[in-house]
């Protein structure tokens, strides 16, 4: 069991000395996750709101599609996005394969159904009297949308946090589209997988600790959201 202890102590040393490679991995992870979450939220929040609040033909069908995509396997997402951004693909000329942006596209595709479906659910769960109240107080269409979204803000925040957790801990898309390139597209999850396969536990554990810390922060945020949402 001493190798586990050695790995743990080595991990603490890496973190304490701000090891350059470890920091590069953390930075790549946060940047790709940031790009992916920005895209997923910009597209997903309005779409989710429309699906939850709107009344248009095909709404139920689109909702079903979005819900089905929640179970989309990450390797399949990786495969599909790979097919588009590979040199021979329709977006090959953009040179996105094995870059952070390419990785972020796949992660955004992963996060999008979560943001859309759960935002729609949050909006559907709003008390119907909220809409009537806003209308009788004189809200115009845009105000009605904004205030309704604001009214379910804690539920929407939980959606964001959940999507963030899903993206940052994902490994399949990052491996296929990023290529796990050192000092470039190596993320925490792909690095852990690589280091473990080499028997190098120290960096794997160090990164695992950082992931664990992030998971803790994410869950702390969720708990705060739930608490505020109840009041």
């Amino acid at each position: 069991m001493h190798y586990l202890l050695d790995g743990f102590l080595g991990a603490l040393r890496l973190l304490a000395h701000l090891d350059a490679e470890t920091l590069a991995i953390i930075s790549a992870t946060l940047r790709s996750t940031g790009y992916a979450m920005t895209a997923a939220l910009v597209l997903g929040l309005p779409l989710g709101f429309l699906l939850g609040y709107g009344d248009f033909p095909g709404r139920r069908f689109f909702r079903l599609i979005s819900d089905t995509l929640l179970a989309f396997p990450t390797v399949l997402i990786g495969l599909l996005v790979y097919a588009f951004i590979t040199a021979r693909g329709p977006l090959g000329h953009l040179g996105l394969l094995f870059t952070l942006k390419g990785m972020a596209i796949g992660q955004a595709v992963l996060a999008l159904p979560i943001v859309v479906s759960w935002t729609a659910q949050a909006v559907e769960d709003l008390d119907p009297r909220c809409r009537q109240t806003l209308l009788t107080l004189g809200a115009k269409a845009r105000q009605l949308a904004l205030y309704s979204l604001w009214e379910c803000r804690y539920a929407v925040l939980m959606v964001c946090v959940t999507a963030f957790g899903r993206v940052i801990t994902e490994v399949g898309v990052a491996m296929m589209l990023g290529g796990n390139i050192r000092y470039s597209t190596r993320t925490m999850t792909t690095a852990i997988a690589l280091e473990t396969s080499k028997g190098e536990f120290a960096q794997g554990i160090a990164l695992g600790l950082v992931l664990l810390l992030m998971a803790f922060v994410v869950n702390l945020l969720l708990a705060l959201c739930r608490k505020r949402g109840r009041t």
Partner: protein
Amino acid sequence: MTALLYEGVGLIQRYGEREVLNLPRLEVEKGAVLALTGPNGCGKSTLLRILAFLESPAAGELRFTLADAVQSGEAARRQVSLLLQEPYLLRMNVQGNVLLGLRLRGLRLSRPEAGRIFEQVMWDVGFARPKDFADRGPAELSGGERQRVALAARLALDLPVLLLDEPTANVDAESARAIAEAVSAAGRRGTTVLCATHDPALIRALNAQELRLGRAWDEV
């Protein structure tokens, strides 16, 4: 002869196959204070939602003289305020809720001005110390207080039409008295009031003319 505010002919509302309102004729004069009475399920709440332009009747014609409801439901809706039977307060503090309608109408109030309006309407609905309630959340209010805060939000708008759906149904005697006084004062100021209620004390306090809706849908 006083001018008509609402004029309805053959108003019918259906939810699915079920007919929930059938009103051959309705005339409401400007400045009238009317109590809508009748048994449960006779369509009082439905009629109020139609008069508030939250829904359109399945059949019949409704004329509203303050705005062209056909051309702009929004313009008509902005002349009318409706207090729901179980009012909903948004997840913001009491002052935010009371002044929400003014903000939605684009009024930019200075802090002292907002405070003055808030205190006045809260006083009108029976809060002796409005400032004590300004920062409270909806969850910190009793049922009667919520009802009165919701009414204060409507009174702050000072609109020509005030519709109320059983405002004293779920509140204590003190809140019911405060609500009756506030609505009565609005009526005296010239606001047209339509109040669905089963409460004879409220009808007396409002000195309201009674419009009885029946299940047989007698002409009103």
